[in-house]
């Protein structure tokens, strides 16, 4: 079979996680096929290349038929977490060499006295930092011209020290980038292969420390991401894939690998962003637009909020414990997960976490040497998980080890095993519920009006209990929660966002100057999107302004309405409304515009699969087992359903367990389930 012969067009989404690499394949007019292969941590691209062979073998898919190849990657994040980025140099304005190390002088752990640095000094310790004479004023005027000779000398030294990339951060470059651009030209002429990150390109906004950190992180991961994506693109090409490689960025939009390599700092939340987009699309397919997604992993849980079908975007995220000022999907991580260990403290109290058995050794029931009871062990004891059907039966759990582990805390607590296991769940659920509540409070949102969407493998076990705890009445379990991030890749839009500093009191807003500034960012965004294979009629362009009260130094992103008669007045009104929503008040004090931003989007498909959902043939009920639920004194019989066989319109009531190869959904008593037309499982509290 050859590519041209079949005439088929497949779209492939690949999300690489720590343990598994998830692959989703979609064919226009057809259904969605999914595959999980073990990740290859050393060189993650190997698993991808290997999966091409499996796709041919299992699905009869010819590589030449692949039309789009979309990727969510953790390479940038892992480089930071493991401190395995490139050796970089940092060049700053004379007098400001140490900004990266001084930071904002804030310490993370309030009650600690033996301290650890709060700033990412490891990116460029003093020996790899240089300062050069140059200075812009706070109005963007040249105070001291750039000393080109000093700059080249600094670059030469850094290269001689082994720097693979250089970050340049000059004061007020976001107002006037002339010196950074001059520096780039000079260095590029001397060291054409050296990678550069310029602060006005990475993060054109005020506050020198935050901008320096973002720029240094960009340089730090650039050689690593570049190598990796080059390797992957090369591997795909050698395997016969002609489709361009696209990569998910932290904001939830895709870009060509070619561009991603230029701005790798935008890839830190590549994987989680894909999960949130997947959640959004699934929600839309069920007619639900206000969602809270929760992805429960082994050591942590990721929580994100989607309001009116829009994922919340935060202007700054935390990577490896350091704030990085790059817009990203607002995914909040809390340190509780399936591997969280239950233990007794010295006063005899039960604690769950913060220690975790992770995936190695993992829960006791994995039989890999772990003996302490984890949340997953409790799930086995409670009857939530079927040891023989874990991960679709590919991985046998040892129930007796789970029982032994839970017994080790049950005895001292004076409880029976079931009550102790239930206790572990209650404590974990309380922690996660508080985490969800905090995320909603910060956005000014009441979670009770939202639907909970469990992602990943472990979410379904806790979903109804968590929703009950939070007063939420709806849970939406996607048809394939285990690979939703990979599926999200296929539905995401291609997106480019460019912003620029544009400071003016709103009252004095000069619309002509505003339009000129937008023209500038539009040109840059258009150049970026030009490198994607997108035809202009598929494009949406939206404009935003960062606005704050005069005297305030944090701002809110407000959509710009350029068609309106009085743009400034609309902007002000919208700002007040947003301020009231997020901060709880809005006085009519003067406001100012700080940055302008353009977002160019080429829309994704908005549906996960075009084929009507069809269940597999077979019995819907596959048995009953005794399951212990919260608030009940003894286990009760629960019906076990096989998710794959449940047809659209199928209804049932809890207590029930719904099994499928990538997750198990626990339906507490008091909840009823319905399979909708798209195959989603919708649980409603009665």
């Amino acid at each position, binding site marked *: 079979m050859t590519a041209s012969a079949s005439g088929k067009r497949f779209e492939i989404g690949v999300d690489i996680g720590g343990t598994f690499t998830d692959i989703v394949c979609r064919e226009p007019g057809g259904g969605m096929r999914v595959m999980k292969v073990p990740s290859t941590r050393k060189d993650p691209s190997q698993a991808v290349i290997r999966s091409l062979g499996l796709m041919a073998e299992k699905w009869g898919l010819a590589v030449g038929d692949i039309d789009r190849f979309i990727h969510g990657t953790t390479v940038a994040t892992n480089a930071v977490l493991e401190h395995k980025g490139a050796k970089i140099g940092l060049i700053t304005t004379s007098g400001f060499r140490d900004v990266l190390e001084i930071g904002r002088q804030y310490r993370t752990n309030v009650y600690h006295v033996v301290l650890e640095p709060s700033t990412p000094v490891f990116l460029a310790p003093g020996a790899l930092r240089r300062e050069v004479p140059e200075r812009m004023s706070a109005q963007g005027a040249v105070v001291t011209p750039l000393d080109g000779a000093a700059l080249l000398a600094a670059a030469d030294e850094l290269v001689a020290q082994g720097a693979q990339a250089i970050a340049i951060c000059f004061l007020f470059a976001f107002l006037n980038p002339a010196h950074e651009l001059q520096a780039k030209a000079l260095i590029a002429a001397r060291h054409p292969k050296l990678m550069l990150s310029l602060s006005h390109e990475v993060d054109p906004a005020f506050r020198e420390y935050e901008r320096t950190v973002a720029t240094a992180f960009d340089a730090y991961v650039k050689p690593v991401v570049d190598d990796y994506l080059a390797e992957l693109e090369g591997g795909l090409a050698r395997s016969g894939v002609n489709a361009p490689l696209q990569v998910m960025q932290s904001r939830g939009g895709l870009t060509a690998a070619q561009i991603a390599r230029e701005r790798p700092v935008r890839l830190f939340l590549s994987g989680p962003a894909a999960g949130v987009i997947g959640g959004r699309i699934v929600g839309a397919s069920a007619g639900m637009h206000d969602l809270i997604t929760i992805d429960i992993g082994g050591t942590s849980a990721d929580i994100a909020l989607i309001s009116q079908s829009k994922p919340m975007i935060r202007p700054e995220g935390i990577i490896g414990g350091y704030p990085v000022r790059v817009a990203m999907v607002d995914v909040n991580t809390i340190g509780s997960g399936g591997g969280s260990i239950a233990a007794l403290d010295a006063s005899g109290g039960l604690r769950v976490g913060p220690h975790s058995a992770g995936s190695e050794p993992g829960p006791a029931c994995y039989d890999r040497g772990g003996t302490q009871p984890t949340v997953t062990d409790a799930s086995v004891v409670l009857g939530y998980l079927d040891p023989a059907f874990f991960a679709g039966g590919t991985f046998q759990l040892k129930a007796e080890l789970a029982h032994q582990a839970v017994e080790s805390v049950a005895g001292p*607590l004076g409880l029976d095993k079931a009550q102790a296991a239930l206790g572990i769940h209650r404590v974990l659920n309380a922690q996660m519920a508080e985490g969800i509540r905090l995320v909603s409070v910060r956005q000014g949102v009441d979670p009770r009006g939202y639907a909970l969407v469990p992602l990943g493998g472990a979410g379904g076990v806790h979903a109804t209990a968590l929703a009950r705890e939070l007063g939420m009445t709806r849970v939406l379990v996607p048809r394939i929660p285990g690979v939703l991030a990979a599926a999200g890749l296929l539905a995401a839009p291609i997106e480019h966002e460019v912003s620029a500093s544009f400071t003016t009191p709103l009252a004095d807003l000069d619309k002509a100057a505003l339009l000129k500034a937008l023209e500038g960012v539009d040109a840059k965004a258009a150049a970026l999107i030009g490198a994607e294979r997108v035809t202009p009629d598929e494009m949406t362009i939206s404009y935003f302004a960062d606005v704050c009260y005069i005297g305030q130094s944090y701002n809110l992103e407000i959509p710009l309405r350029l068609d309106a008669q009085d743009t400034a007045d609309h902007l002000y009104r919208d700002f007040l409304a947003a301020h009231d929503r997020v901060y709880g008040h809005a006085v009519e004090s003067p406001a100012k515009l700080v940055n302008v931003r353009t977002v160019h989007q080429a829309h994704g498909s908005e549906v996960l699969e075009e084929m009507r959902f069809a269940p597999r043939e077979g019995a819907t009920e596959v048995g009953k087992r005794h399951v212990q639920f919260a608030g009940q004194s003894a286990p009760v019989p629960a019906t076990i359903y096989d998710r794959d066989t449940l047809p659209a319109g199928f209804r049932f009531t809890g207590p029930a367990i719904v099994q499928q190869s990538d997750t198990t959904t626990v339906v507490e008593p008091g909840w009823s389930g319905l399979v909708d037309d798209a195959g989603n499982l919708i649980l409603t509290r009665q």
Partner: protein
Amino acid sequence: MTIAQNALDPITVEVVRNKLEGIANEMQQTLLRSSFSPIVKEGLDASASLFTVKGETLAQAIAIPIHLATLIPCIARILKTFPLETMQEGDLYLMNDPYLGGTHLPDIALVQPVFAKGRAVAISATMTHHQDMGGMSPGSIPTNATEIFQEGLRIPPLKYRDRGVVNETLVAMIRQNVRIPDTVMGDLNAQLAACNVGARRMAEIVENFGHDQTQAIFADLLDRSETLTRAALRQMPEGTYRYVDFSDNDGIELDKTIRFEVAVTIKDGTLSCDFTGSSPQVKGPFNCVPSGSLAAACFAVRAITDPQIPTNAGCFRAIELTLPEGSIVNPVEPAPVNSRTATIKRITGCILGALKDVLPERVPADNSGELLALMFGGRYANGRAFVTGELITGGSGAGLASDGVDVIETDVTNCMNLPAEAMEMETPIRVNRLALRPDSGGAGKRRGGLGLIKEYEILEGEVTFTHRGERHFFAPKGANGGEAAACAHSVIHRVSGAQEVIPSKQMTTLGKGDRVVVETAGGGGNGPVTERTRTDILTDIANGKVSPVKAREVYGLTEPV
């Protein structure tokens, strides 16, 4: 539930504990989110906490240690003035007076009794540093105050709301006495919103778990933290450990240093701090009322015991304080107190310093212990007024196994600095330099963290300049044979070429072209200098933290670098 009603189920206890922490953090979010003034938004200078009906801390948000502890005596005083049985649903109480339990006048405590089914079940409380509380200078922290009446409006425990009806007399009184009434009322409303969140969610808990069970759980949580804290203290060597340190001066009598002496006794699971021997109270505003010493001791207890112990009143039961009346740690009315932060930091440093020999793994060498406060106010050439300020710190002390951290907030405070770009955009001041201060960290096997050098240049007009420094005359000491850090040092370079060394505290006027160079103290070193490895010394030289000269002089490096 199979659990008998009267026996406490350990799981429910832990579930409730997690919820209490969640509620405190939700209150904190609400407080920061709905506050208006930059000091709260940017400096995060506001805190939320939950208390039992007896006024014992039940759970704290992650916030400012000084606030969290000073709410304790505030609530005690409010409960004394308005006994619990007289409190009604919908009541709110507030106060700020340092001599009645507060800390300094800008910090207002707002306190709400929580009711469930008509019974008082807990107390929800917040403390915010307000932008202005009246008095002799904008911002209400006048460094030249000599009595509290100059510092602003003193509010004793009063009812802010009576069964839902706001006390308009009090509101009018506050509004009339502060410079920015709308901002103050806005921030007070944010406190109210946060207290409400706490009250609503606490009431839910009590309704879910029942009044008696909830009260029993609260008591149990406190007892558990007490047990864990006392057990941790019992593992420490018993004895009395002494420490002496000094503050530069009180800003009024510049030649008079302030002595702090503490005897910390660890015995039978208690930590007692006796400040006998400390200086008498001072003329200037550096006096510290007892709530400040309590904050220092609370911080010390949490710092030296396991961080996993839930922070609540149980941890603090192990504390005993002896504060001689009329001394710097227990001044007599009407001594001024507004600059007490510097003093609380020194008290905390002394308590920890006393323990550093006996707990070498937990307590590092002395921190810079300074939070340099700079204020600039003036007008642009076109007449537009500006005012700005910032708080700058120095290095942290080296630990037994790790170097100190450069320029980082320590102990009871945690404020952010001001970016150079922010300052330059808002004022006619240029920052010429923002750098680590080489050689300022105390030498030792583990080097102390470095202080900072920052240079400001006045570009336009006349600027009123206030410098409230510390550690100009008394260096942060080392531990286990490590050396002391460099003292702080600040100089004004006049455009005329004249240089004026700032004697720790100063108010003066700066003109166009004048430059101010401030250098903050480092942290103390830990362990003998002779034991620092050659690799560490060379790395420090390469990174610019230690000069080759100092490497030769202090560390005895012989090879050329």
